[in-house]
């Protein structure tokens, strides 16, 4: 009797230790690893209604965190949304697998120029989700001239009215652009020149912010700010005097893309979700939810003039042509970046 009881106890204990998810073993799932607040949540309900596949959502706040997580928990994620330069590294490290584009008929909706980006030239691995640019947001009540160059950040007229971006690649990148170099420079001399420019500029900067910038600009606390297009649109909604421009020297253009980790357990479901997110009406819902630029030509057609007339969200081809994608920087060059950035931060 005693033996039976202990056997039962062990059995009960053992059973309860099995992961809860097994209770839903019958239901199909797809594990999505996404940026926080990056998609309209009702999209997932629609997806489940139509396909019966449940979306498990998990979130990250920056690319570096995401890379670590995908590396240490194989099999946990079926669909991940990294930025362009990370895709490059993930392909190189074999972290992601090729997508079967036969399962994604809606891929045809993607703007042709974005179908074969630099970081995935044979378009085997990824499907773009949203994109945007880096530029200058300025207050037309304080800046009367037409802004078209990064050099305005070095204009002493606007001392203490300029908010810089506290982000290493972006800010080093714009200084490189000002000097006529590539944002992906691998030349220590160019990087040092960019650092010297930023140190010279620092006394003019009101602050180095990331998240605070959009609210400060909306409140009229500064004249000029370095900003991403999506944040700029948010501030422009609140303050009609604001204007966004991508400087003539060129700037960064970025794309967040959908990729499938090599260890994914539900590859076909992930492909179904990618296809669903590329459907024009769904892409429109997401775009109208976060107001970044959509890579989906059919969705843009649906949104009509609201979208196409807005130069911030829909920059002209000429603007796109002068922009540059970030590439993954090899570690030994990255030490130059971090070292120089540290010296900029420390300058007084």
């Amino acid at each position, binding site marked *: 009797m005693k033996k039976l009881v202990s056997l039962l106890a062990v059995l009960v*204990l053992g059973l*309860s*230790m*099995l*992961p*809860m998810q097994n209770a839903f073993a019958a239901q199909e799932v797809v594990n999505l*690893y996404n940026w*926080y607040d990056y998609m309209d949540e009702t999209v997932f309900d629609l997806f489940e209604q139509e396909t019966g596949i449940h979306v498990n959502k*998990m*979130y*990250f*706040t920056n690319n*570096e*965190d995401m890379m*670590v*997580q995908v590396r240490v928990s194989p099999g946990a994620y079926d669909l991940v949304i990294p930025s362009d330069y990370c895709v490059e590294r993930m392909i190189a490290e074999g972290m992601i697998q090729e997508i079967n584009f036969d399962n994604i008929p809606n891929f045809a909706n993607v703007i042709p120029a974005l179908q074969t980006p630099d970081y995935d030239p044979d378009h085997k691995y990824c499907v773009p989700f949203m994109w945007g640019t880096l530029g200058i947001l300025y207050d037309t009540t304080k800046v009367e001239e037409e802004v078209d160059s990064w050099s305005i950040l070095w204009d002493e007229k606007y001392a*203490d009215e300029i908010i810089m971006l*506290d982000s290493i690649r972006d800010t080093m990148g714009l200084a490189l652009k000002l000097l006529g170099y590539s944002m992906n420079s691998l030349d*220590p*001399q160019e*990087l*040092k020149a960019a*650092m010297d420019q930023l140190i010279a500029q*620092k006394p003019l*900067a*009101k*602050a*180095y*912010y990331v998240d605070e910038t959009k609210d400060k600009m909306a*409140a*009229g*606390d500064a004249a000029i700010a370095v900003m991403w297009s999506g944040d700029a649109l948010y501030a422009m909604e609140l303050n009609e005097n604001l204007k966004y421009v991508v400087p003539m020297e060129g700037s960064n253009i970025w794309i967040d893309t959908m990729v499938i980790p090599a260890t994914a357990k539900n590859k076909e479901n992930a492909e179904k979700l990618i296809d669903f997110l590329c459907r024009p009406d769904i892409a429109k819902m997401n775009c109208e939810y976060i107001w970044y630029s959509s890579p989906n030509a059919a969705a843009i057609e649906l949104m009509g003039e609201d979208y196409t007339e807005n130069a911030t969200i829909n920059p002209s081809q000429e603007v796109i042509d002068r922009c540059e994608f970030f590439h993954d920087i090899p*570690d*030994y060059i*990255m*030490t*130059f970046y*971090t*070292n*120089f950035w*540290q*010296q900029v*931060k*420390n300058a*007084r």
Partner: protein
Amino acid sequence: MTNFKVPVWGYWLMGIGLAAFIGLLIAYIRKNRGFRRPIFASPYVLWIIVFTVIPCLLVAYFSFTDPQGNFTLDNFKTFWDSNYATRQSLGPDALKMYEDMGLSLEDLGLGRSSININTLVFSLWMAFLCTAICLLLGYPAAHIMADREFRLGPTLVILFVVPMWMNFLLRTIALMSLMEDSGLINSILEWVGIGRQKLLNNTAAVQVGMIYNFLPFMVFPIYNVLNKMDYKLSEAAMDLGCDKWHVFYKVTLPLSVPGVVSGITMVFMPAVTTFYISRLLGGGKIQLFGDLIESKFLSTSLNEWNVGSALSLIMMILILLSLGLLNKVDPEGEGGGMV
């Protein structure tokens, strides 16, 4: 936020561990029926081991090793010359290559640089200023609050305590919007006729934030000592012919030294390790030693954690030294330490 999910067996393990711990505790108490005292310290000891001793050992371990775990003193050399680690991680071959290209270390921006030391000196200076100003503001305040004839004393104590019920970050953010160009203080200044000033994003703003946050740590130790002081001593001094100034100078001040020393340590310690306040009120333009350490740990570069640990260790030694000083002057802990 990383997305870490505790697996189900993890909860079981934690539950079993907790049950075992409680069981052992009960068994131990029952065995030693006298409820021997040290047993009650065991949760605290466990806490200290897990959250203080082990992390400190880890910091020490990291600061004496490279990312591969081999013993090295490079991290401390990086403290003296902040470009040392970068040169090391590039390696002699790469440096040779640049040299052959005709690029000196200075051209590469990798010459000797004392950023870390300069930042530490700047932090020490800021902390010294903060402590001195807190003492100047705090001593009279504590003296008034402890004065028996001053009826509003207890009210003042409450007024000092109440803001501390709110998290210091929230208070600092509030200070930030008060001092903003379009903020309340500037509106008042304009109304008075002085005109708007640039209050935020400079060294003075960071100093104001530090004083604002750390002033109570100066006031309360001094207040504690003065409040406990026997009032009859000053009366006796007066009977013996001292005027008010001499009573303060000959009796009160010497007796309050332990409180002052405690206050100085209590302010200096958090002041010298300050970070984030400097980011909020300095607009990301002013970097203190604490910010420097933080940036080392947030960096994606490989060896930065080790360098950050070495910087932390140097900071900890500084703090230990000041604690030692406190113990020498105030061995009984009369100043009361924490409020």
